[in-house]
């Protein structure tokens, strides 16, 4: 059983998705989906333990040897991502039953859970597999189900947002497929480890350059790197609240994983950073992204939009850490993957609670909520502080490493700009705080009640995790360090 953990992580939610239709009663399906995702969460913890104690796990699908068969390869990086996706997926799902009562018609509930499980399956698949074509397959599974999930949103604009995402996402996926095809043409293999070996001989050819360019652009579309972010704000804003909380915490993270995997493992650091000017491009785009998206966030009136733009800015931080191209920089990125997932899932889930109570997340509707929904608003404040990067929250930890990485490599201006960028976060977070706490409740609206406990429990679990991992950093720092060192080939 323990030997099969890698495949169980993917196969269980995949099988569970169609099984939802047999239950077909909202509450039962919810419990079932929750059970399944709790299982994946447990599974990923076991995987992480196994990887940390005995190194990379290689699992051959159907017993066929790589490179003929597909192999699943779980190292520290994969295990970390699996843990992020499965734990956030589970905690968010806890509030789903309450949330979708208000946001989705009864007959869509089963569909919702089924798609949710499919989407999570796709993400697990992407981060487990060691085969590039398999990556594409799972990417499509997770993306297609995500499009459908977004389109379920109550707001009619959700359809348009999903359509936009569909177009952009498909272009991205196609680019990735073209890149994979070109690589296959040059090397005759699809296995990542095998590709890495064979690419060395041919990596100065134009075809490989083209493949690299297609892959990078495709992945950057998926991770909403500025200026390829246009699909993200509306998709997040109009999707059902649960979907937003889940996707905001996971979807871009998976794309960042792909970027790291392709450049570090498949193409190699030497090729990605020395042959091509990836570093400068990404640092500039990351910084511009931080400033442009944070500034946009300051002027938005829909709170989901505010945090969506903030997500784009946070992607900027991750890309900068990655582009600094040192073990510390990559570690900062990995920490931020983990930390940002905690922040954004907490924040968007809290917005879900607001949506549940007042049916809107317009900033103007937040007036007086500081008194009427004190626990939910307190969660937004703590989440917001974490976003700013105040000490004792997780946001501080990743920012610290990012700054250390920038200073170590002598990139002073980058360090200064990162800090200035985080000042912008104060502005957009505080607009929400001021509206909620200093404006009187809207006239003519009945007194709003605090969110139900099915919301508060997961929200506060995530908020407390934001504080806990900001104080006890052993787990996150150790794993991130092990992952980044193994990618850089440093033996700890």
């Amino acid at each position, binding site marked *: 059983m323990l030997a099969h953990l890698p495949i169980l992580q993917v196969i269980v939610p995949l099988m569970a998705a169609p099984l939802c239709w047999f239950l077909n009663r909202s509450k039962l399906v919810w419990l079932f989906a929750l059970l399944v995702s709790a299982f994946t969460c447990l599974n990923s913890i076991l995987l992480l333990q196994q990887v940390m104690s005995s190194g990379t796990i290689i699992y051959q699908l159907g017993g066929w040897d790589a490179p003929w068969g597909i192999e699943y390869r779980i190292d520290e990086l994969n295990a970390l991502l699996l843990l992020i996706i499965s734990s956030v997926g589970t905690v968010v799902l806890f509030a789903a039953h309450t949330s979708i009562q208000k946001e989705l018609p009864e007959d869509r509930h089963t569909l919702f859970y089924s798609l949710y499980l499919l989407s999570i399956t796709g993400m697990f698949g992407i981060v487990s597999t060691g085969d590039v074509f398999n990556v594409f397959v799972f990417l499509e599974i997770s993306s297609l189900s995500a499009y459908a999930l977004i389109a379920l949103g109550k707001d009619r604009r959700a359809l348009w947002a999903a359509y936009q995402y569909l177009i952009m996402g498909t272009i991205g996926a196609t680019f990735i497929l073209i890149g994979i095809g070109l690589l296959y043409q040059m090397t005759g293999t699809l296995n990542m480890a095998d590709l890495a070996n064979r690419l060395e001989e041919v990596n100065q050819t134009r075809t490989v350059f083209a493949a690299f360019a297609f892959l990078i652009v495709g992945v950057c579309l998926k991770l909403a790197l500025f200026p390829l972010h246009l699909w993200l704000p509306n998709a997040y804003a109009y999707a059902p609240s649960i979907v937003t909380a889940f996707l905001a915490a996971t979807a871009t993270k998976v794309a960042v994983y792909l970027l790291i995997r392709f450049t570090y493992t498949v193409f190699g650091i030497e090729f990605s950073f020395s042959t091509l000017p990836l570093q400068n491009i990404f640092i500039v785009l990351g910084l511009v992204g931080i400033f442009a998206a944070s500034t946009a966030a300051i002027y938005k009136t829909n709170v989901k939009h505010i945090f969506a733009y903030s997500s784009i800015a946070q992607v900027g931080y991750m890309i900068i850490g990655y582009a600094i191209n040192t073990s510390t920089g990559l570690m900062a990125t990995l920490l931020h993957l983990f930390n940002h997932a905690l922040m954004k899932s907490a924040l968007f889930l809290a917005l879900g609670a607001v949506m549940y109570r007042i049916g809107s997340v317009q900033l103007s509707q937040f007036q007086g909520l500081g008194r009427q929904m004190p626990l939910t608003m307190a969660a937004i404040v703590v989440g917001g*502080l974490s976003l*700013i*990067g*105040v*000490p*004792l929250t997780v946001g501080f*930890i990743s920012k*610290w*490493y990012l*700054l*250390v990485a920038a*200073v*170590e490599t002598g990139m002073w201006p980058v*360090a*200064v700009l990162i*800090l*200035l960028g*985080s*000042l912008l976060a*104060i502005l957009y977070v*505080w607009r929400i705080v*001021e509206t909620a*706490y*200093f404006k009187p409740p809207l006239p003519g609206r009945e007194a709003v009640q605090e969110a139900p406990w099915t919301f508060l429990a997961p929200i506060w679990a995530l908020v407390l995790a934001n504080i806990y991992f900001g*104080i*006890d*950093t052993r787990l996150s*720092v150790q794993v991130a360090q092990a992952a980044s060192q193994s990618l850089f080939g440093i033996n700890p």
Partner: protein
Amino acid sequence: MNLSLALMLQLTIILPLVATLAILATGKKPNLREAVTISISLAVLYCVINLYQGLIAGATIEAFWWELLPGLEVSFVVEPLGMLFALIASFLWLITTLYAVGYMRGHKEENQTRFYLCFAIAIGAVMGLAFSANLFTLFIFYEVLTLSTYPLVTHAGTEKAKNGGRVYLGILLGTSIAFFLLAIILTWFVAGTLDFTAGGVFGSDVDTSLVGAILVLFVFGIGKAAIMPFHRWLPAAMVAPTPVSALLHAVAVVKAGVFTILKVCVFIFGIELLPTLPTTEFLLYLAGASVLLASIVAMRQDNLKARLAYSTVSQLGYITIGALLATSSGVIGSSMHIATHAFGKITLFFCAGAILVATHKSKISEMRGIGFTMPVTMAAFFIASLSIIGVPPAGGTWSKWFLLMGTIETGYWVIMMVLMVSSLLNIAYLLPIPYHAFFPGKGHPTAKTGIKEAPLLSLIALSVTTLGCLILFLYPQPLYELAKTILTVPGVSHGH
């Protein structure tokens, strides 16, 4: 004995945090809630006094909590400078609590539970800050202090309070993230440690231009020290209820700022290295300008609290100057000024609050003749003013004496002139207030109105702090001894 002292050290930080829970639990019963606050502040004071005796007896008192990141730990140590700050803050917390009970009830403020709650967190943060064993721990508590005082500043919940809070948070959080954090990371990068170490952490062979730049980042980043141009938050924070202004903006928050500056100058840079840096002189003149300009602005304020706020900006400049002079007299003067200014300014704020509660007046121009209705308050105001100006028989005399000595020793004549002129300006903007209160001139009410003082508790509180101003003049030895040992303390670096 050492073990229990280490425990007490941690209790000074933990007790106020425990108090928050107790305050929350007793929020519905005001009498019980205030009893909780007062008994916990007594307990904290008891711990601090024990620590003081332990320190005098030569005990090494340390505590280690946890390692946040490899090499960066949250740990505490008792050394004279922190001790001095903790003593003042814990004593004045007790007094302010007494005052606040009278004031908040007399003024019928709302949300008093939240008020006492945030107050307690702020004091816990101040204790943590005072006993920090390294810059990293200090930074954490510095930020906690900013955030926990924000709800106090915006207590009234009005548009004006909101705007004040915006400036307050914007400047304090902004400078701390943009400059202070950067300075800390650069220090970590250059020196490889953030522990407060006697003589500083930078070796002798460092790049002085880089370290000089770090010094500038520190001075600007520690926004709580209110060096111009980052002083705007202090006047803005005056929208808070008066007890908040009194404790936080005469003692806890602003003193946390200058305390941090002193700590950084003495234990991060070291007084050997500091004068050799290319930026020190520039910062000295900047602080001098801050002293002078703030005094001039203070003269033009008609709102009493605003005038006191600008006076604080000016006095904080004194302390920064003393730290940057990096001589024994400068450091002694600065640390004594932390104490004497705290007592003087808190008394002045108490008086301002007392006037507001008793007569609902906040403008200086309306206060002519007020000495006849509030004789005790205005007498206290007069004595505290003397302390701020720095003339006998009040404590401020000593600290200003040492600060002047420091400027003379180092030959910064311009700075010396600045300090002298500023003291004259202090006279000009403080003394007319009690003078006109007792000698209103023609056409103003005199003794006829009868006596109407603030609530008794508030009156007791302001009498105690006034007495403090006088005692600091008559018995400055304990304070001086403590200040003197700051530079001679052998090992403040950790070693758990």
